[in-house]
């Protein structure tokens, strides 16, 4: 990986400050992520790891943060960029209940999210099946309501949803909670 090539920078964060109610939550954070690179954010509880992801996924309004931030060379500061950024971003939240409709099946869940990226039902279903196989989700559970699946299986369906549109960047917010070591 040629880190020196600026064109390969996919996430750029420079001097990021996040301020809520006059309290600085994030202070002068800078980092860069290159294509194909995997990085981890480490810190104590409340350090602001999730807040950084929220800035990068356009969840925090620009009035609450300052600094130079770009995701796939687009700034989340411009509202017009949000849709383009989010097309390239996959996200798996810490709590899968924020990502899944428990009353629906894994396949339908994936179809719902896939339709937000403009994918047709058939294509979404095919990709979903491939992802479920890769993530080792038992086939006999694909059409059952999610509430009947185990915690680990739900987590893997949540991951599949994050990957359904083949994103350029995948944000995993503590993704291994509830996954057993065999998986």
């Amino acid at each position, binding site marked *: 990986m040629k880190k020196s090539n600026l064109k390969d920078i996919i996430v750029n964060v420079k001097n990021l400050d996040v301020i809520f109610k006059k309290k600085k939550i994030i202070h002068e954070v800078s980092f860069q992520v290159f294509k194909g690179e995997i990085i981890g954010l480490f810190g104590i509880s409340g350090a602001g790891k999730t807040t950084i992801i*929220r800035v990068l*996924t*356009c*969840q*925090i309004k620009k009035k609450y943060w300052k600094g130079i931030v770009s995701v796939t060379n687009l700034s989340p500061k411009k509202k017009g960029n949000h*849709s383009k950024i*989010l*097309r390239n*971003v996959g*996200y798996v*939240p810490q709590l899968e*209940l*924020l*990502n*899944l*409709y428990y*009353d*629906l099946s894994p396949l*339908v869940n994936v*179809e*719902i*999210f*896939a*339709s*937000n*990226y*403009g994918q047709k039902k058939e294509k979404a279903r095919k990709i979903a099946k491939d992802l479920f196989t890769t993530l080792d989700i038992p086939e006999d559970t694909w059409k059952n*309501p999610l509430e009947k699946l185990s915690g680990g299986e739900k987590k893997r369906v949540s991951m599949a949803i994050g990957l359904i549109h083949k994103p350029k960047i995948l944000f995993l917010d503590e993704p291994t909670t509830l996954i057993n070591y065999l998986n």
Partner: protein
Amino acid sequence: MNISGLVRKELGRLRSDKRTLILLFAIPLILIIIFGLTSGGGPSEFFRAAIITKDDMDCFDNFPSNSTEYDNVFVSVFQDNLTSFGLETYYNVSTEFAYNNAYIECERMLKNEIIDVFILLPENFSETIENDVNTDLIYFIDASNLQAVKSINVSMLEPIAQFKLRIGKTANFTMIIPYLEFEVPFWESQVLNYAFALTIPLIIIGTTMNLSCLSIVSEGPLPRMLITPTSKRSIILSKLIANSLIMILQAGEIFVATAIFGLYCLGSLYELFLVFLAIGLCGVSMGLFISSISKTDQQANQLYLVFFIIVLLFSGQFVSVGNLPPSMQAIIYSFPLGHGIPLTLDITLKGLPMNFALFSGLLIISAVYVVLAYSFYLFKKVEV
């Protein structure tokens, strides 16, 4: 916007929650069945009657003849199988003394609830009929029973109609019934149709508002949806479409159920259904608004109850709208039932065409609530 996928999601979620789905359709049906069955197909009660006829007594009016033939016909009508009345006894009196005794006996039976009503045929009963002059029909009711007073007024139409048929005369009766222009024929479901204009819009508003009032606040993954290229506008729109589709089915169910239980509609059924839909749309929009401003399910449920009570109180049924100051009138007309009830009443009982101003009012109210729901949701802090 990927509305179709979001709409499919909404419908899929509703379909998967079978218990809620059943309730959505069962509640209006149960309410209508209660209204329908409590009234049946005809008058709401069966009354026991006594008749005192003074027709044999001398007639003091200046009539060219002195006839006594029609009181027997009137009594025989009551002796036959009427759906609303049964004859306990009758007194054919020819003297004032006999009349007084009959009157005292009838009063005793009324007090002891042996009879519900006693009818007095005056001395000139047959003469007035024969000479096409208005006939007085006096009936005594226990006035403490307000429901009976109201019902007997309506039920009296049946023996009168039968009597007219038997004697082949129709012109010489003046029926004095309150609100004659809103009259529901005795063979139609009385309670359902007189209560229809208030209860049916209320049922529609209640069920549709309930349908959508949790749709935003209770959907856990909704914030996650916003980390996709989906906009808040698409989410609100998809919820409006999906809930409106369910609402159309609900309105259709209510329409059919009321027809089965004796809907009496002088006007256009098509226009009545359109009014149902417009009221339902208001309910869905108000529910979305409640859902967008609530932070928890409990808040949404409480707000639903508050809104339902406000909608009911501002329906214009408990106060005379015309007598209120303009500001209060404006408040009443900013809620859907202020438009929905007069519209329903006009179409069903008066047979009038749909009032376009009132109908537009309903559409404007629903549009305003959708815009408000969107605006509140737009500025709501939503994070995963």
